[in-house]
């Protein structure tokens, strides 16, 4: 599903990533670790197609509409409600039975009661849970998640554990984290960036 050889990314003269080789197949769970500034976010943006490599070869064999990306930003509008944000993405991703799917995800991530409130009034943890709903909305084949546990409370983190556990055998996942021990039971591969 993902094949990268000699991947390199530079911003001006600054080399952010260099010599990255990786293979991710369906059912794989790749955990990406590394200190701040090691290029985790850059690598995940490359895999999602949001940035282009400076050098090397990258093949991602998934349609754009079958990829779920969770970045540092929630990628939702603060002036819209959770329901309106998910409805917009549901339309753009052509999600079948959109309303049912949105309702189910909001229930699962504990946001159903706040579904009609503007995202701008949400806490960081609630916004992150909504971002996870957005990422999972179209049932993606490939999930690229950048520090998905960030800002989540115990309940949210436990729900994410369950979601990732359920997806790990049938989807390809690339997840960056500062807490690799949490994902150890699910991981089938590890990439440590220096």
């Amino acid at each position, binding site marked *: 599903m993902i094949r990268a050889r000699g991947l390199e990314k530079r911003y001006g003269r600054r080399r952010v990533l260099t010599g990255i080789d990786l293979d991710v197949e369906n059912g794989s769970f790749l955990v990406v670790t590394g200190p701040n500034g090691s290029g985790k976010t850059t690598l995940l943006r490359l895999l999602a197609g949001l940035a282009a490599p400076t050098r090397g070869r990258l093949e991602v064999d998934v349609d754009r509409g079958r990829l779920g990306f969770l970045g540092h930003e929630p*990628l939702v509008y*603060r*002036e819209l409600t959770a329901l309106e944000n998910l409805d917009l993405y549901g339309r753009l991703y052509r999600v079948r039975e959109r309303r049912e799917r949105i309702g189910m995800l909001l229930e699962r991530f504990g946001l159903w009661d706040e579904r009609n409130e503007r995202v701008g009034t949400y806490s960081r943890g609630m916004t992150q849970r909504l971002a996870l709903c957005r990422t999972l909305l179209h049932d993606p084949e490939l999930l690229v998640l950048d520090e998905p546990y960030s800002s989540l409370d115990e309940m949210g983190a436990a729900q994410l554990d369950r979601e990732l556990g359920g997806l790990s055998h049938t989807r390809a996942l690339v997840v960056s984290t500062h807490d690799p021990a949490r994902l150890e039971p699910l991981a089938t591969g590890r990439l440590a960036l220096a």
Partner: protein
Amino acid sequence: MTYLSDVVALTRKDLRVELRARDTLPAMLLFVLSSLVVFHFALPEEAGDEAAYGLLWVAIVFTALLGLTRAWVPEHEHGVLDGLVLAPCDRSAIWLGKTFATLAFLLAAQAVALPAFVLLFAPLDAAAVAGVLLADLGICAVGSLLAAMAAAGRARELLLPLLFLPLAIPLVVGGVGSAISSEPEQYLLFLALYDAVFAVLSWASFEYVVTE
């Protein structure tokens, strides 16, 4: 049909965001009205209607610029543009949705500004109004593309006027010409041609503006 429904969903989203945030339209309304009032007192009495039509276009272009400067702010403040770019819809639908929303704000501002102009300066005939409407299309089509380019950088307030104003000059020429010429048809035709050419160019190039 799918393309159209994407455009409708994106336009509706922009209108809804503005309805809640009220960041753009009130500023545009206030700016265009206050500009016209200042021009009213600045323009010498002996200056003819032709000078007034020129000032109307100054007010229109800078009001549009004000709206365009804020057009992509919600997308860039929270990284939403990445989310839209990743969606499987045609990326030009994002540009078209933004163009329609910006056009709606500009038309709303002009719904107040044009009667105010008539009250303070001079009458507007059908050709002059047609000129305004045609120029609006060009302003919003080109402006939405350039605003997306400028919004990606840090100095969008500086960059957008530098990019937009040179391209707006033909629209001002066409708009003023349609108001003061005895043969406004050629100016209206010129505006329609500008709209068609630049709308196609903007539609085709938007994808390259939002992807690396």
